């Protein structure tokens, strides 16, 4: 019963409000008023907004991909440690979460700006100075950094469950390292990989702090757009419509993930 109340207050009512707002007209000083309209929904399909959505998907997708490229080997390396060192390594992975998200993002500004360590370092070996801050690359870097622990943890969990005998069996049957990775390790840890990718992709897609701080004005993402509708343009209905667009996209992705998970459960334990 408490779970139901929880769901109602934190999920059903807010979602209902967002859906309702998306079909109303904006009030003069924020808020909403009648009459009901489909204008907000049709406005979503203007090229300007679709472009922002597309570039947000690309940014979040790239961040997810890079997080996987780094996170998978990291998770694999952790499983090879002794049990007590595994605990140490896992604590190290989640340690950044002990510091405020904003402060960590500000730290990247210091690292990336023209007088920062990265630029100075590259200058020493004759490759700088360069401007990384306030570029799209900085946004992707920031997103990757912020959510990579959420990639490492589920992959680590699924690697832990994997029977190491299977890798030895593949080796014994003549499979080299790359084939073992491709035919055994990757498919059998796919549920963890997909979960990790969702955990990185979903918060990256709606993020507006990192594009603002590390991207400057140059790299708007859909999150910034939504925030601006509510706080600057005072157009709550259109902000709600944009939110629904993001939500719809995520629902589709989560459904794909669920069907992939069903397939892997068929293999049995």
């Amino acid at each position, binding site marked *: 019963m408490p779970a139901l109340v929880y769901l109602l207050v934190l999920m059903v009512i807010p979602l209902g409000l967002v859906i309702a707002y998306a079909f109303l007209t904006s009030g003069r000083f924020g808020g909403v008023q009648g009459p009901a309209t489909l204008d907000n929904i049709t406005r979503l399909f203007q090229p300007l907004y679709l472009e922002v959505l597309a570039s947000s998907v690309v940014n979040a997708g790239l961040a997810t991909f890079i997080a996987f490229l780094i996170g998978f080997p990291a998770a694999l390396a952790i499983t090879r440690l002794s049990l007590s060192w595994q605990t140490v390594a896992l604590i190290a992975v989640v340690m950044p979460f002990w510091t405020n998200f904003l402060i960590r993002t500000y730290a990247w500004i210091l690292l990336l700006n023209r007088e920062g360590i990265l630029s100075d370092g590259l200058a020493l070996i004759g490759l700088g100075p360069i401007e990384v801050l306030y570029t799209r690359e900085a946004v992707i870097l920031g997103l990757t950094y912020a959510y990579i622990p959420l990639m490492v943890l589920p992959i680590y969990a699924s690697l832990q469950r994997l*029977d190491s*005998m*299977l890798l*030895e*069996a*593949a*080796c*014994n*049957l*003549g*499979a*080299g390292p790359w*084939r073992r990775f491709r*035919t*055994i390790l990757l*498919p*059998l840890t796919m549920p963890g990989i997909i979960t990790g990718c969702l955990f990185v992709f979903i918060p990256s897609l709606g993020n507006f702090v990192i594009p603002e701080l590390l991207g400057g004005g140059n790299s708007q993402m859909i999150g910034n757009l939504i925030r601006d509708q509510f706080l600057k343009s005072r157009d709550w209905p259109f902000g709600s419509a944009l939110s629904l667009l993001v939500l719809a996209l995520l629902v589709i992705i989560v459904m794909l993930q669920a069907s992939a998970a069903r397939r*892997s459960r*068929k*293999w*049995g334990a």
Partner: protein
Amino acid sequence: MTAGTPLLNIHGVSRSFGDIRALDDVSLEIHENEFFALLGPSGCGKTTLLRVIAGFEQPDEGMITLDGVDLLPIPPERRAVNLMFQSYALFPHMTVERNVAYGLVCERLPRDEIRVRVDEVLRTVGLTDKRSSLPRELSGGQRQRVALARAIVKRPRLLLLDEPLSALDRKIRGEMQVELKRLQHEVGITFVVVTHDQDEAMSLADRVAVMDEGIVRQLDAPLDLYRRPRSIFVADFIGSSTILKGTYADGAWQAVGVGAIAVGADCAGAIAIALRPEAVRLTATEDAAAVRLGTVQEVYFQGDHALALVKVDEVAFLANVRDDVLPSRGSDVGVAWDATSVIPLFEE
């Protein structure tokens, strides 16, 4: 290769894990087409030896050659040695067919040849109708056949089997035992079985190496191992026996707690003697053949015979009873045996 030339030559192989000496100067020769068994209690080093041959462990010392070629520098994925895992280690996301084909795909064989060989081996193990099943959908016995098929389809020089029957229940175990023997003849591959089950080793293998604490205690054909164990360990581990420690003096065995016993074999240098239960009979107390008198402590019914435990002073004798009437517990009996059935044991 002529008969008698060793296919696999293990020479002076040692391997330690910390303070534990898993393999201690092990030397073995395994011949072409032989069914060889490594028998021993858990922790005796037999699995380590298997992993060394397969290439998952490197020995600290020693040498292993296969067909005369040094095996140790070859990485595990390129050794002509296949291993059937105790847990089978079937790939859960692949069908029976893809599991079996895996090793051939690794060899980059043409697709047609792979299909022919997979079909053939599935027929051999009787799983043609299960080719599209996932491992999860198979019974224990069927999984084992897939594991076997996956290993033999590679046509290895040597097939290693780690406790091949331990995961099966008793009834299927008997069937698979016959099956393994048939397959070994049919495919003509040298089999090395690792097991802790003496029945399995004795009934399957041409030769058995009994291991204990990383050392090969005795290497013989099953019959010789049973009839002529050299050590207390082997006499005790293989079959059951009454072991009498003592010394050899004045042409008789001076057994601790039992006194002098006449022996048929030369027991000079022995540290103990063994009597197999089938060599010991129970007699009436007044029978002239009775060597000692004792009291029946327990009688274990075994089907075609019963095993009686008879206490003679402080020593328990094991005797097989084939009479229709079994002795009752607590009754006084005589124990008798022929002096020629005494087996001298020379090592601990």
